[in-house]
């Protein structure tokens, strides 16, 4: 174990686009691994989270597992960050909030075009869906918000380098986008 700040990341109800954007920092990732060590994240494939300095959350909260993982991250991370539109305000998945959960499930598994063997899955291993999709700040306290769909690699780089340097975070105009 090193003394470097430990970083964990996760995608809840997200598309992994924000993680792809993080990888889009290209060769700067070599600098990043000099600055931090990674804990639970899809990049390391570690499945359980230990005590961390920084947690980056992609995606909103759409099912019971999302709630559990988010609370686990909050419990283990000194600083928790909502990364991307879905974590910040629920994003595209909140379009299902215009309908009841039953309507969504019926459309997907019963009445939808091209559905074979109609029936709503009931396997106990499938996390139960929440009635609505929520931004993460409705479930836990969030310390920083980075909007964007996804936030650009430069936006994430600005955030990470300034936070790790203990600087106030100031984004140039072109780095803050809601889309």
């Amino acid at each position, binding site marked *: 174990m090193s003394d470097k700040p430990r970083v964990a990341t996760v995608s809840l109800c997200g598309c992994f686009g924000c993680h792809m954007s993080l990888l889009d920092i290209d060769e700067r990732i070599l600098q990043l691994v000099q600055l931090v060590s990674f804990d639970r994240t899809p990049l390391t494939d570690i499945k359980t989270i230990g005590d961390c300095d920084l947690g980056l959350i992609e995606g909103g909260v759409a099912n019971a597992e999302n709630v559990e993982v988010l609370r686990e991250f909050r419990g283990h991370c000194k600083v928790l960050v909502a990364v991307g*539109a879905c974590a910040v305000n629920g*994003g595209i998945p909140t379009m299902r909030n215009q309908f009841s959960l039953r309507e969504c499930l019926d459309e997907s598994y019963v009445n939808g075009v091209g559905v074979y063997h109609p029936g709503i899955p009931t396997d106990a291993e499938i996390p139960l869906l929440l009635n609505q999709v929520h931004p993460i700040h409705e479930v836990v306290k969030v310390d920083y918000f980075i909007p964007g769909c996804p936030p650009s690699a430069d936006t994430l780089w600005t955030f990470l380098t300034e936070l790790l340097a203990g600087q106030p975070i100031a984004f140039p105009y072109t780095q803050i986008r809601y889309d």
Partner: protein
Amino acid sequence: MSNHFTLDGRQLPFVAGQTIMAAAQAAGVYIPHLCHNPDYAPHGSCRVCLVAVGRRQVSACTTPVTEGMAVDSRCESIQANRRAVLQMLFAEGNHLCPACERSGNCQLQAVAYYTGMLAPHYPPFFPRRPVDASHPDFIIDFGRCILCELCVRASRDHDGKRVFAISGRGLASHLVIDSPSGLLGDSDFAATDRAAHVCPTGAILPKHKGFEHPIGERLYDREPISKVGDLRAHEDEVDGNE
């Protein structure tokens, strides 16, 4: 020399009867706003143009300038209140920028960028408001309406049609359309109406086009609205010619 006031420490001239907003715009100074459009009577409803006059905070678009008035538009407490107003607007509607054709050319979004809003902060309402796609040329997404009444004013005062109105009170306030069915397609609304081109959000959108400008080349992608100006000055680029 009379007829001067100060805005953020700068002395500016004004004409008697001018609002703070009008005097600032005449001097080329940007005060953020959404429901204000110089073509129509001031409305004072969005509260984004808050400025400090002494210890009071007033809307710049409805407050007349007086001789020697000292106006502060840039201090952090004003910016914070504007941000809070914008956060409430975002939280009470369905403003999903990644899925909106107006994104990048949207005044609501651009003003939020200008004030440094990073997140809507408040718990979102997720109101259930159906889209009206009944008109052949235009679509209305009521979830994006911020009740600025610009379409109401344009339709009434310029087009002479009164296609739109706000109905209900408080939280129940909502945009309604004057037609037997309540649908835009059954109203007198036409693509050539001014009301079709004044919406500061993506609530009233032309059909058969969208996402025409790539990301990076849209109106507010490179420079803030304080430099680029309102949608009003760029209508042809955004909506295309009729």
